[in-house]
């Protein structure tokens, strides 16, 4: 008997009438929360703007009309953007497109992503017979989102033979991949080392004439491979239009990176273990170079000083201990604490550092322009509201002198322990 659904027209009416004094109470009882949208008796959608939105930072109520937020509770957890992208799985690929990303710093670089975008174009050209993009990654990496970059299959080789500078062992691995899957296309970044070098070695070994410096590829039914490409030649002074060969070394921005789909990035393994070849080139490791001698525009790690640095000898000492190249804001330069060639920003140098530590820099737009391409920005500042904090990946609020001192002590300690352990 109690299982029968019973309607209570009065309750329903109160629930619809948001001006009724018992409205909220009834909604709560019927478990609807504060309904923000319901079908009215006349078949119209009724909305209650009081039940939606949130109180903004200035105490003013804001309504987010993007559709991500609904009802009083914010509509529950919204799915992260990555999950909303459709997952594309290619079970039985018609062919393979092999890509060897550079993985500078252990992550896919912008150049790698552009190349993967090109690989996707090549793989997806014919919807009836789609290919799979295979990425060959050497050594340890920190990349979590291979799938979002458009990779269907991932061949991760992490044995000691291919670690460090081992072009011959890596070439051996690529040759094995070639024999196992015979990719229709090989794509490598035409970068200074890594891709550019490995690609040329592979070309010489396979006896393929590659296209180098490719910056554009377009479908063309008249050529054998189905694609035409435009490549730079003669130190960048010529454009060569030619059919796209099997092996191509492409420049950055050769295609748009993949952004609308997710791919499986399923693990793949070589059928046999790598042959242990005797390397004729022995890697003796990186040589320590004097960081102050490195040009600011190509330094990897910059410690930059602004008006908030009070203890200059301490700052120089910190840069030395950390092994960072020194940079400065315009104020620090104008005040005579730093040399003019150390200025970062619109009227100084545009830096490309992977890690940029801004000490006591407020983040004026002229300064932020100069650090646009930096990967990770760390800010040390007293003012939690300044623009540099908004740009920073990690911000520490506090006095620059003390924090730098603490940092130097920690690094020195860690080195000491290492020496004791060794």
């Amino acid at each position: 008997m109690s299982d029968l659904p019973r309607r209570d027209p009065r309750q329903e009416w109160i629930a619809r009438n948001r001006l009724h004094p018992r409205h909220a109470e009834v909604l709560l009882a019927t478990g609807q929360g504060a309904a923000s949208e319901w079908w009215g008796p006349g078949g119209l959608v009724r909305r209650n703007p009081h039940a939606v939105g949130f109180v903004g930072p200035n105490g003013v109520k804001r309504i987010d009309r993007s559709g991500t937020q609904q009802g009083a509770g914010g509509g529950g957890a919204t799915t992260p953007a990555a999950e909303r992208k459709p997952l594309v799985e290619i079970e039985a690929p018609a062919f393979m497109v092999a890509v060897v990303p550079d993985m500078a710093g252990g992550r896919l670089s912008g150049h790698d992503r552009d190349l993967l975008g090109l690989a996707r174009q090549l793989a997806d050209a014919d919807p009836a017979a789609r290919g799979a993009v295979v990425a060959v990654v050497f050594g340890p990496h920190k990349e979590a989102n291979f799938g979002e970059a458009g990779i269907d299959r991932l061949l991760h080789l992490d044995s000691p033979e291919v670690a460090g500078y081992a072009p011959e062992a890596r070439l051996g691995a690529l040759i094995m991949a070639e024999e196992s899957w015979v990719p229709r296309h090989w794509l490598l970044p035409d970068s200074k080392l890594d891709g550019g070098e490995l690609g040329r070695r592979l070309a010489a070994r396979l006896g393929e004439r590659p296209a180098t410096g490719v910056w554009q590829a377009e479908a063309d039914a008249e050529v054998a491979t189905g694609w035409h490409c435009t490549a730079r030649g003669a130190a960048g002074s010529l454009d060569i239009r030619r059919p796209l060969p099997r092996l191509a070394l492409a420049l950055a921005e050769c295609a748009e990176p993949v952004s609308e789909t997710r791919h499986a990035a399923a693990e793949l393994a070589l059928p046999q273990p790598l042959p242990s070849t005797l390397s004729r080139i022995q890697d003796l490791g990186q040589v320590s170079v004097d960081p102050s001698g490195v040009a600011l525009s190509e330094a990897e790690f910059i410690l930059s000083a602004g008006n908030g640095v009070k203890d200059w000898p301490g700052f120089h000492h910190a840069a030395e201990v950390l092994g960072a190249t020194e940079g400065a804001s315009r104020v620090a330069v104008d005040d005579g604490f730093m040399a003019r060639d150390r200025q970062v920003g619109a009227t100084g140098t545009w830096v490309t550092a992977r890690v940029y530590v801004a000490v006591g820099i407020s983040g004026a737009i002229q300064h932020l322009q100069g650090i646009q391409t930096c990967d990770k920005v760390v800010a040390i500042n007293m003012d939690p509201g300044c623009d540099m904090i908004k740009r920073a990946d990690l911000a520490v609020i506090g006095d620059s002198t003390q924090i730098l001192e603490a940092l130097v002590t920690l690094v020195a300690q860690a080195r000491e322990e290492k020496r004791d352990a060794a």
Partner: protein
Amino acid sequence: MQPESAMTPGLEVTVLVSVGRHPLTGRARRADQDARGVELARSLANAQVRLLHAGMRDESSEAALRGYLGMGFTELSLLEQPEGADVLPALAEALDAMSPHLVIAGERAERGEGSGLLPYLLAERLGWPLVSGLAAVESVEEGMATLLQALPRGQRRRLKVRLPVIVTVDDAAPAPRQSAYGPARRGAFETAAGPVSDDEQWAAWQVQPARQRPKRLKIVKAASARDRFKAAAAKAEGGSGQVLTDVTPTQGAEAILTLLREEDVLR
């Protein structure tokens, strides 16, 4: 004093030189990286350096090649080739005959396809190891060469390799000396004919002066007007960063140190 070369067998070095192209005027000149290679060879102690060029001989290329002679050489070996020929067979044959210990080349040519493939093909053909992007040769001892390779961001890597080896020179190698006019005039070309093979593919391609690459547009893929507006009006992006307030200097320093370690910039 007895010259040292009489006692120890000298290191035989061959530098492959090409005709360069001035980036602005387009006139023939000595190619920048090749000239750096010659300079590198000149800086090696106890080395016998030979210059080798394969290509056409005409007025402008001769003037450019004399630029290398002016760096202190009396002769340059020239393998005559018609225009547009593939110089690989000729060079490979000549190097096989000379069998030097060290072959130095530039990374890529300033004319023609400029693919930078030649050293790799030579290495594959001769079966020698190849080291690319050299900044310096540190030492050559007992058949082993210690080399400094230029990495991006001003970094260097030390490599050891058994001779004979082919190396290519990076822009980070020492700048070449000026070419002296007198030796450049007096220097001689030692011409030889080599095997000729035509490059048919190159002739079939469409080649034109490089045009400016289109600038990539910032495409905002947004589902709603609000997202598009946000993307257009965004100032300094981010906001996802971690902000540490009310921490002791040591805690702050620890957080920074962790990030520096993660990014692997501390040595």
